[in-house]
């Protein structure tokens, strides 16, 4: 009888922690409250945007170019396979041990994590454009650059967004362990329990989970918005289409 | 399904007696009685009350434009599609008395895309139904080898996968797989539809030869009227909307189409198509003067007066045709060595269409009909062919004999 109530109690306490600051367990400073969570969330998003931005700068042009040339498929697939085989904790730990802590290093490590889905999806997005469509465009006199800008890019946009979405969600998740490398994100209350207490730990877990889900859903909506209307199709086709866009969108290449 | 697979249950054992591997299972008699099919959501019925009778051992061809319901009719036989009304009787017994899966194991099934199992070898594909029926391993192996030979596949194919075969070879495997338990009834949905014309022609001929010995009852679907005429003992022409436009033998169909739709579907060249049904031996042959090089021309001219054919034919010592002679060739005293024009040569078993085409390709519109040794046994004239085609009181001979193109040797 008492256990469920106790659980509710802990969760209730955690929610209270998000809205109202209280004294730290170690005494002295105030912890928790909307102000602190807003600043932690801001930092969390800042490192995420920096990492995904950096990754996009490298991976998007490369993926689009390789896709346009229909070359380097092996590279695109290998990068995503290797990316999956190196656990995020190992990647961050390697950065700490060999390069040291700090915002720049963490952003760099997270960027490495973000590259594979963006690269693979951009590549696949372009290569899946019907060859006949491109052939017809070239036949009508479009230049290479026009083909990329006017045909490949718009048609690849849904998959490109899918890759970005995957990366953003992955990076939000991994940024939770950034405090071990000296970047204070929403993971800080989770990891330094001694300062924030059980309520703070749980509160941060709730906020991180919400942040990830909101990013996933929000970017999913954006992905649908950039999908050309004809490709969204009829209700039946949409359901199937979304299922498969999502398959690719997660960057889970199968080979 | 209620019957356990793998074990030879009572029904399965009864359906596959020890001798099932040899063609002494009697072919089935098939009957459609007021069969109706209305797909859910469709405004009109796809099949409106179809009644048909297929005698045992014959090939029924369902033919008609795409979407008229041929596949639907065929698939109702093995209950891949359940009719909305009416009955389908196999040897007088409704096809609903047995569980669907059990019924299907007794009905050969061949489709255009072959539907071969990509993950099974050719031998395993062919053994599918025998294995379902729980045949012993040794018997399955024997039967598989026998079937591959029957459809003209090298035994070395047994261990290959379907992806390693050409389209024509795959279709042969499809036929072998359908014949595995020597089913009394076979369903074939455009089996040769996706194959190049030359291979298709060969497969058709081989299949007809096979059918001469197997004598299965076959429902054969095609949208190609030429294939229908070639393969069918009986042809059911279907019209969009699932109506049966005409049900007749190929010859009847070509001779007297029931209505404008059938006439159009059969084609403006239906008279020529009838040539595909007959053989040279079906026509009465004529005679002409046979001469040798060196014969006196006066004698030849004399003989010609009573001849049915206005040209003398030069033959060699063994009676083989060498050349046709005309007036110019008979100017000298004797027939000069080497003069005359080329002779079209046909055999008694040749299809009339091919023979006629050969005649048309030569200057002299007569063909020498030769026996197995190449010796002339008579002359085929284009007049005789034309007489055969003219609609008259006497129907075309092969129809009288009740034989489709598949029968006779």
């Amino acid at each position: 009888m008492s256990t469920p109530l106790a659980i509710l109690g802990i969760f209730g306490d955690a929610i209270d922690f998000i809205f109202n600051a209280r004294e730290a367990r170690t005494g002295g400073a105030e912890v928790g409250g909307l102000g602190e969570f807003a600043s932690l969330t801001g930092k969390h998003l800042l490192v995420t945007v920096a990492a995904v931005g950096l990754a996009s700068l490298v991976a998007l042009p490369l993926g689009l170019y390789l896709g346009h040339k229909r070359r380097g498929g092996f590279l695109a697939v290998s990068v995503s396979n290797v990316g999956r085989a190196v656990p995020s904790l190992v990647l961050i730990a390697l950065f700490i041990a060999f390069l040291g802590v700090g915002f720049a290093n963490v952003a760099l490590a997270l960027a490495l994590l973000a590259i594979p889905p963006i690269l693979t999806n951009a590549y696949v997005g372009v290569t899946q454009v019907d060859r006949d469509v491109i052939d017809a465009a070239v036949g009508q006199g479009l230049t290479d650059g026009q083909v990329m800008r006017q045909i490949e890019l718009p048609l690849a946009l849904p998959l490109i967004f899918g890759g970005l979405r995957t990366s953003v969600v992955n990076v939000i998740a991994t940024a939770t362990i950034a405090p071990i490398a000296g970047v204070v994100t929403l993971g800080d209350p989770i990891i330094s329990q001694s300062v924030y207490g059980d309520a703070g730990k749980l509160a941060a877990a709730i906020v991180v989970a919400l942040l990830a889900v909101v990013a996933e859903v929000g970017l999913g909506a954006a992905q649908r918005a950039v999908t050309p209307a004809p490709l969204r199709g009829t209700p039946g086709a949409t359901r199937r289409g979304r299922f498969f866009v999502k398959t690719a969108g997660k960057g889970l290449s199968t080979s | 399904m209620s019957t356990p697979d793998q074990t030879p249950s009572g029904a399965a054992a009864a359906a596959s007696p020890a001798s099932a591997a040899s063609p002494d299972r009697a072919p089935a008699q098939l009957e459609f009685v007021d069969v109706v099919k209305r797909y859910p959501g469709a405004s009109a019925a796809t099949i409106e009350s179809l009644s048909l009778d297929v005698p045992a051992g014959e090939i029924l061809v369902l033919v008609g434009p795409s979407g008229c319901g041929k596949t639907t009719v065929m698939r109702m036989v093995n209950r891949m599609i359940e009719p909305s009304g009416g009955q389908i009787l196999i040897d007088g017994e409704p096809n609903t008395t047995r569980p669907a899966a059990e019924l299907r194991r007794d009905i050969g099934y061949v489709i255009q895309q072959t539907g071969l199992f990509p993950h099974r070898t050719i031998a395993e594909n062919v053994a599918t139904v025998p294995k379902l029926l729980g045949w012993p391993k040794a018997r399955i192996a024997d039967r598989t080898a026998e079937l591959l030979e029957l459809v003209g596949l090298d035994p070395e194919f047994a261990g290959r996968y379907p992806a390693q075969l050409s389209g024509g070879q795959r279709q042969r495997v499809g036929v072998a797989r359908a014949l595995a338990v020597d089913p009394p009834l076979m369903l074939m949905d455009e089996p040769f539809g996706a194959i190049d014309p030359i291979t298709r022609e060969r497969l058709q001929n081989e299949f007809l030869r096979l059918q001469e010995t197997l004598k299965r009852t076959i429902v054969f679907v095609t949208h190609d009227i030429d294939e229908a005429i070639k393969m069918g003992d009986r042809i059911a022409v279907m019209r969009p909307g699932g109506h049966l436009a005409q049900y007749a033998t190929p010859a009847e169909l070509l001779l007297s189409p029931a209505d404008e739709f059938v006439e159009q579907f059969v084609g403006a060249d239906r008279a020529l198509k009838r040539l595909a049904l007959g053989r040279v031996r079906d026509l009465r042959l004529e005679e002409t003067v046979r001469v040798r090089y060196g014969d006196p021309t006066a004698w030849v001219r004399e003989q010609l007066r009573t001849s049915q054919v206005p040209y003398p034919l030069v033959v060699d010592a063994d009676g083989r045709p060498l050349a046709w002679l005309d007036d110019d060739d008979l100017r000298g005293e004797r027939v000069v060595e080497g003069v005359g024009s080329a002779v079209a040569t046909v055999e008694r078993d040749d299809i009339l269409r091919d023979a006629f085409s050969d005649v048309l390709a030569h200057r002299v519109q007569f063909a020498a009909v030769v026996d197995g040794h190449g010796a002339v046994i008579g002359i085929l004239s284009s007049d005789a062919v034309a007489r055969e085609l003219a609609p008259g009181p006497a129907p075309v001979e092969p129809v009288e004999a009740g034989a489709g193109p598949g029968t006779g040797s």
Partner: protein
Amino acid sequence: MSGALGSIPLLAQGGEGFVRNRESGSGASCVSDDGVCPAWIVDHFDRYMEPLGRHVLLTVVALAIGFSISFTLALLAHRRRWLIAPVVQLTGILYTIPSLALFFLLLPITGRGFLTAEIALVSYTLLIIFRNVVTGLDGVPSDVVDAARGMGLNDRQVLWRVEIPLALPEIAAGLRIAATTTVGLASLAFFAGAGGLGDPIYADLNFKSNVLVAGGLCVLLAIALDLLVLAVQRLLTPWTRAVPA
């Protein structure tokens, strides 16, 4: 405000069971410099065996349970298509929640330890495997299924003898992705008190030798599982290697 950085509070939570011992053995100066010390690695390699075993256990159990659940769900959804959307949405949310957050959300309910870690790890495999099984079954050519039915295979026989074998490459691909993903996530399981290779990594983040060995084992484990599934798949699907005529 935070002061989270620093090894004392971190150790208090994470690396129990992994005793730091850098002084003993050879190359003491290399070790005190946090360097890459081959001699130290050779001397202390055995201390990574227990975390490695634990990591393997965490991963394999999660994969086995995750596969059973998602495979069953996929078979159900294969015939009842309406199930696909809700299953994908639900497992999609589970997949989205950061693992670290999920561990700590579960702690008040299931407590610290193996169970909590497994619940989280299993929940990440569901989407991946479910989606690949459904995609694989959908990819079976319809003429093959039609021919199978036409020859008298019943529903169960069609499923187990035709559809599932032909979906194996896609299913294996899903399992491979799930395997490498789970190895990675299991390195965070020590936050839930379930051990694994994350333990030694976290215990001494600055010591290059330590991070290299433990991290390397993680990567090798991921690759090994990936290759193992691939090998089994190739063994089970000989037809995929048949050279076309």
